[in-house]
C-alpha cells in the first residue's frame, strides 16, 4: 500500500501551532507516511515538532469560517492544536491523520521503516535470552530445568519457546497440565528467591469448571516446588466471587481439598475496561484546570486510579511477604495470567530483588515478565486515555505497573539505578515507538512478524551510554535489601511526571532537579581532587623521608 494515497494534502503553510505554556508558533505542516511534522519559519527560533502518527490517540476538527482547527490528542497524553487556513486543506489533513494513525496492519507501522541513525553496539533482541537467565538460576539451584516443550508455540501460543519448570516434571506431564489451564498457561517459574530458596510461579486459572475437575499432574507440578513440610500460597488476583463465577465458564480456582499444602488468598485487582475507564477519567480530571478543589478531589477519587495502584501494590507486597517473611513459595494467577498476574509477579521482584532495580535488571524484568510472558501489548496499548472506541481489550495495565514502580521509586529514591524519565520513556514506547520491541501480543506473533530481523529493538537504542546517561539516577547506591513500600493512601501520590506533564510549567522543578544533580557532581569532583592532593602530599613526604635517610 502506498501511504501517498492516504495523504491528500502533504503540506500546508501558515499553520499555527498551540501548546499549553508555549507561545503560539506559525509554520509549515507536513505529513509523511509516519510523521506529522511542524516546522516554524522564523529563522532565529526555528522549531520543529515531529509527531508519530501512531502516537495520535484521537483527533477533533472545528471550523470558524474558513479557518479550520485540528485538536490532536496523543497517547502520551499531550494535546496540541493546529490552526489551518482553508477548509479543504484542513479536512484533507484531518482525514489523512485519522487514516494514518489507525493503520490496521502491523507491518505498516513505523518500526518496519525506521532506519537507525546510531551505531548498534549490542543487539537488544539478543540481550535478554532465557538461557542467560537460566544460567544465573542454575548457579544457585539444580531443582529447575529449561523446557523446550513450546518450541513451535504448539503447547501454549502466548508463552515463549523456552520456559523454566521443576526438574522433576517431564514434558509429558506439562502437556497434561497445559490442558488444565486457561490458554494452556501452565505454571512456570517467575522468580527464585536466593535468600531462602523460595519461588514465585505464575500461570492462568485452572479449568476446574462447575464439576470440580482436577488434574493430578497440575497438583504434582506445583507441589514439586514446595520443600518437605512447607506450605505455599496461591495468590488469586480475583475476588473469591469472581473466581467462583469463573467456574460457570469452565474456569475456576484450586480447591483446597485437592491442594492441601496450599493456602489460597484472593486479592482483587481490576481488569480491562474498568482500568481503561479509570485512566480516561483521571486524565480528564487532570486536564481541566478550572476545577475547584472539591471537584478536583472528587474527580480524582472517582477515577479510582490510586485505588488500583494500592490494590496492585498490596497484592505484590503480599506475594513478596509470603516469600521473604513467611518462607513460603507462591503461585500467582488471575484468569488469563497475562495482566494482573504479571503486575504482581514483576512488582514483587522489584521489592525482593535488588537486581531488578538496576537499569539492565529492570529491562530484563520487562522482557521476561511482560514481553516473553505474553502480555498482549498491541491490544492493551492500541489506544490511550483519549480513545472513544469501546474495545474491551484496551487497558493501561503496563502503565499501572510503571506507576507502581514510580511509587516505590519515590519511597526509595536511592535504591534504583534508573530515574523517573526511564519509566516515562517506557510508557511512551509501549504506546508509540520507532522500535519493534512492544509490537505484537506475544513471542509467537513477534516471531511470525520477524521483528528481530526487520525492526530495531528499543534496548539497542537505550543501552548506549549517550542515552543511558539520561536515565541514570544520580542518587543510586546499590541496596541489597528487600524494600517494603508503604501502601497507605497518604503515601501514594499522583504520578505528576505523566499525568500533569503537559498541564503545568515545570521550569522551577526542573531547575531544582538540575541543581541537585550539580551538587552531587560537584561532590564527586571535590572528592577526586582531595584524593589527588592527598596523594601528592603523601608522595612529597615519602620523598622527603627518603632524602632524610640518605
Amino acid at each position, binding site marked *: 500500500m502506498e501511504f501517498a494515497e492516504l495523504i491528500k494534502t502533504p503540506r500546508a503553510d501558515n499553520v499555527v501551532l498551540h501548546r499549553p505554556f508555549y507561545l503560539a508558533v506559525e509554520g509549515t505542516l507536513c505529513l509523511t507516511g509516519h510523521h506529522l511534522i511542524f516546522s516554524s519559519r522564523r529563522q532565529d527560533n526555528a522549531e520543529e515538532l515531529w509527531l508519530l502518527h501512531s502516537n495520535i490517540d484521537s483527533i477533533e476538527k472545528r471550523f470558524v469560517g474558513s479557518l479550520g482547527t485540528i485538536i490532536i490528542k496523543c497517547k502520551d497524553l499531550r494535546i496540541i492544536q493546529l490552526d489551518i487556513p482553508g477548509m479543504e486543506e484542513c479536512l484533507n489533513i484531518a482525514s489523512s491523520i485519522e487514516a494514518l494513525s489507525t493503520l490496521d496492519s502491523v507491518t505498516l507501522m513505523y518500526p518496519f521503516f525506521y532506519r537507525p541513525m546510531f551505531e548498534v553496539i549490542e543487539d537488544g533482541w539478543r540481550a535478554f535470552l532465557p538461557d542467560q537467565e537460566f544460567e544465573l538460576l542454575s548457579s544457585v539451584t539444580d531443582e529447575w530445568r529449561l523446557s523446550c516443550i513450546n518450541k513451535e508455540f504448539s503447547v501454549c501460543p502466548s508463552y515463549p519457546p523456552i520456559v523454566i519448570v521443576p526438574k522433576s516434571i517431564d514434558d509429558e506431564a506439562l502437556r497434561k497440565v497445559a490442558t488444565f489451564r486457561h490458554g494452556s498457561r501452565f505454571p512456570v517459574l517467575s522468580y527464585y528467591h536466593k535468600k531462602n530458596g523460595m519461588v514465585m510461579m505464575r500461570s492462568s486459572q485452572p479449568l476446574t469448571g462447575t464439576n470440580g475437575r482436577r488434574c493430578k499432574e497440575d497438583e504434582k507440578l506445583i507441589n514439586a516446588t514446595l520443600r518437605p513440610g512447607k506450605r505455599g500460597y496461591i495468590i488469586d488476583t480475583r475476588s473469591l466471587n469472581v473466581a467462583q463465577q469463573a467456574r460457570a465458564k469452565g474456569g475456576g480456582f484450586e480447591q483446597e481439598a485437592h491442594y492441601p499444602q496450599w493456602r489460597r*488468598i484472593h486479592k482483587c485487582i481490576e481488569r480491562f475496561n474498568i482500568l481503561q475507564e479509570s485512566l480516561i477519567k483521571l486524565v480528564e480530571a487532570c486536564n481541566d484546570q478550572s*476545577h*475547584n*478543589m*472539591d471537584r*478536583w*478531589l*472528587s474527580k*480524582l*477519587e472517582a477515577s479510582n486510579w490510586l*485505588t488500583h495502584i*494500592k490494590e496492585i*501494590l498490596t497484592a505484590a*507486597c*503480599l506475594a513478596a*511477604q509470603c516469600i521473604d*517473611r513467611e518462607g513460603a513459595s507462591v503461585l500467582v494467577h488471575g484468569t488469563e495470567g497475562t495482566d494482573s498476574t504479571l503486575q504482581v509477579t514483576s512488582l514483587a521482584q522489584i521489592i525482593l530483588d535488588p537486581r531488578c532495580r538496576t537499569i539492565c535488571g529492570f529491562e530484563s524484568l520487562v522482557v521476561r515478565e511482560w514481553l516473553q510472558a505474553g502480555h498482549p501489548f498491541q491490544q492493551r496499548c492500541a489506544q490511550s486515555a483519549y480513545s472513544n472506541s469501546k474495545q474491551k481489550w484496551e487497558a493501561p495495565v503496563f502503565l499501572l505497573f510503571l506507576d507502581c514502580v514510580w511509587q516505590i521509586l*519515590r*519511597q*526509595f*529514591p*536511592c*535504591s534504583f539505578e534508573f530515574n523517573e524519565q526511564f519509566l516515562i520513556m517506557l510508557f511512551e514506547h509501549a504506546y508509540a515507538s520507532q522500535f519493534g520491541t512492544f509490537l505484537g501480543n506475544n513471542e509467537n506473533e513477534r516471531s511470525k512478524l520477524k521483528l528481530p530481523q526487520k525492526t530495531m529493538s528499543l534496548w539497542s537504542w537505550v543501552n548506549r551510554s549517550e542515552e543511558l546517561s539520561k536515565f541514570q539516577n544520580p*542518587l543510586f*547506591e546499590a541496596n541489597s*535489601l528487600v*524494600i517494603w513500600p*508503604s*501502601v*497507605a*493512601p*497518604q*503515601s501514594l*501520590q*499522583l504520578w505528576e511526571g505523566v499525568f500533569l506533564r503537559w*498541564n503545568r510549567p515545570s521550569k*522551577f*522543578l526542573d*531547575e*531544582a532537579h538540575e541543581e*541537585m544533580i550539580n*551538587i*552531587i557532581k*560537584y*561532590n564527586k569532583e571535590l*572528592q577526586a*581532587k*582531595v*584524593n589527588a*592532593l*592527598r*596523594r601528592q*602530599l*603523601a608522595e*612529597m*613526604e615519602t*620523598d*622527603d*623521608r627518603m632524602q*632524610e635517610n640518605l
Partner: protein
Amino acid sequence: FPSPFFLQVEQVKLLDRFSTSNKSLTGTLYLTATHLLFIDSSQRETWAFSRLFNCPTFLHSDIFGDNSLHCLFLYLLAKYEELYAFSYNPKQNESEQVKGWQLIDLAEEYKRMGVPNANWQLSDANRDYKICETYPRELYVPRTASKPIIVGSSKFRSKGRFPVLSYYHKNKEAAICRCSQPLSGFSARCLEDEHMLQAISKANPSNRYMYVMDTRPKLNAMANRAAGKGYENEDNYSNIRFQFVGIENIHVMRSSLQKLLEVSGTKGLSVNDFLSGLENSGWLRHIKAVLDAAVFLVKAIAVESASVLVHCSDGWDRTSQVCSLGALLLDSYYRTIKGFMVLIEKDWISFGHKFSDRCCQLDGDPKEISPVFTQFLESVWNLTEQFPQAFEYNEAFLLQIHEHVHSCQFGNFLGNCQKEREELKLKEKTYSLWPFLLDEQKKYRNPLYNPGFSPELTLLEPNTVSFNFKFWRNMYHQFDRSMHPRQSVFNLIMNLSEQNKQLEEEIKELEAKIKWRNGQSDAILAKEHQQSAHPAPVALKTPPCFKKEQPLIPVNGAVRTIEGSNTADNRYSEFVEEFSKAEPAVVSLEYGVARMTC
C-alpha cells in the same frame, strides 16, 4: 523532673499508635505541669509535652479509653506562669537572654522596607496602647493621617484596629495596610475613616486608587452589618475598589482540621475514603482560598502598583494570613531564615494574632481555638514545593516553628498581643525561640536554595490550580515514619552540600601544605646539610600510602539506612493479623510525639 507530679497512675498500658506491633507496654504514668512521663516496667522513659495533648491539632479523642484518664488529660493550665516557658532554663545568662530577644528588631525591618519616608511616618498614637490594645506600640501610618483622623478611624473600626502599614513595597511605592472591619452597619459612615483611606491612597504616588480586600465570604460580611459592623461602602470612600475573597472563619477552619485529622487518623483507610475525607474536610480548599487571596493582593501591588487595605472581622486571623503571604510572595527577604522570623514577628506576633487563644495555651474557650497559623505555614510549605529553590529554609523549619507555637517552651508565642506579653514580662522570664533556631540553622537550610532565584523579579507567582495543593503528610503524619519515603533525597543533598563545604576547606588546606612544602624543599636543596631546618612531618589524616581512591567522608550513614524493613509497618497488614492476634487496647499514647519532643 522539672516540677512535682500532679498525678501518678499505676498499671497504665501504653500503645504506640504508630507501631503496628499491637503490643502494649505496662507501666506508670506521671503528669507534671509541663510534661507527661511514662515509665515502663523496664524503666524506659517516654516523655511528651503535656501541652501537645491539649493542642487541638493533635488531640485525638481516642487517646484514652478510660474516662478518668481522659479527664486527666483535659486538664489545662489556668495561668500563664504555669506554662513550661516560665520554668524552662536553657542555661543562658541574662545578657544572652536579652540579646536573644533583641534578635528581631521590627524598627529595623520597617527601615529595610524604606519607611519612614516622605509619605509614611511612625505614629506615636498608640504608644501607651491607648487607641488599640491589641496593636503594637509602634505603628506606621501615612504622613497625612493626623492624630484626630487616627483616633476617629479607630473608633469606627472593630476593636479599634484602624488601618496601619503592614508592608511597604519600595519599588512600586505601594503599601499593604491592615485593619479590622468598619462599624458601618447598614448605613453608618465615618469621615475620619474615609480620610484615613484617602490618606493611604494618596501616600502612593503611582496609583490613585486602592484596593480594599475583605477576606471574608460576602455572606458573612453582610451578616455582620446587622451587628453594626460590616464592610466599606464604595460610594462613601473615594477611589477604592472593594473586593471579597471568601476565606472562611475560625470555626469553619477548626472543624475542617478536625475532620482532616479524623480521616488521616483512621486505620486501614482506603484511597477513596482518604480522598473523599480530604474533600469533605475542605482543608485544601481553605488553603487554596488563603493562597488565592494572597495572589490577588500581590497582583494589585505588582501589576497595578496599587496599595491594598486588607481586613476581615477583627483583623488578626485572615488578615494576618493574607498580609504575611502577600509580603512573602513580593519580597525574597521573607524567604530567608531570618526574614521569615521577622515576618512572623511582624504580621502575627506584633499585630496581635491571638496565639494563646487560637492554640489553646491555657484553659479557655474551645471556640477560640483555630488552626489559622498552621494554615499559614501550610501555605508556605505549598510554595516551597512549587519553588524548590526560592526558600532558604526547609520543611523542618516550618515544622519546628509549628511545634513551638504549641509547646509553650519559649515566650514568643505566649499571650494574645504585645500588651499582654509586656505585662507577663516575657522578655525577663522566658527565652526567645529565634536564637535557638538560628543556632541550629544548619538543620533548617534548604540545600537547593538559590539566593539569586529570579533576581530581576523577586516576585513569586504561584500556580493555584487545585492539583498543585497536596496533603501535607510530613505535618499530619510527622511521627508515622512508615508512611514517609524511607530514603530522604532532601537529607542526602543536605549532607552532600555540607560535605562539599568541608571538602572545599580541605582542598584549601592541602594546597597550602603542598605550597609550603614546595617552598621548604627548595630551601632544603639550598642548604642540604642543615638537617635541623627540616620541618616536623605534618600530621596527616590518612596514611601516606594510597592504593585505592575511596570516598573520604562517609555521607551520614543514617540517611541511607532503609527503615521499614518491617512489613507490618506498611499498611498491608490484613495478612499479618492472621498470624498474630492483637492484645486488647487500654491506653493508646502517641508515642511518636514523645520521641520527638524530648
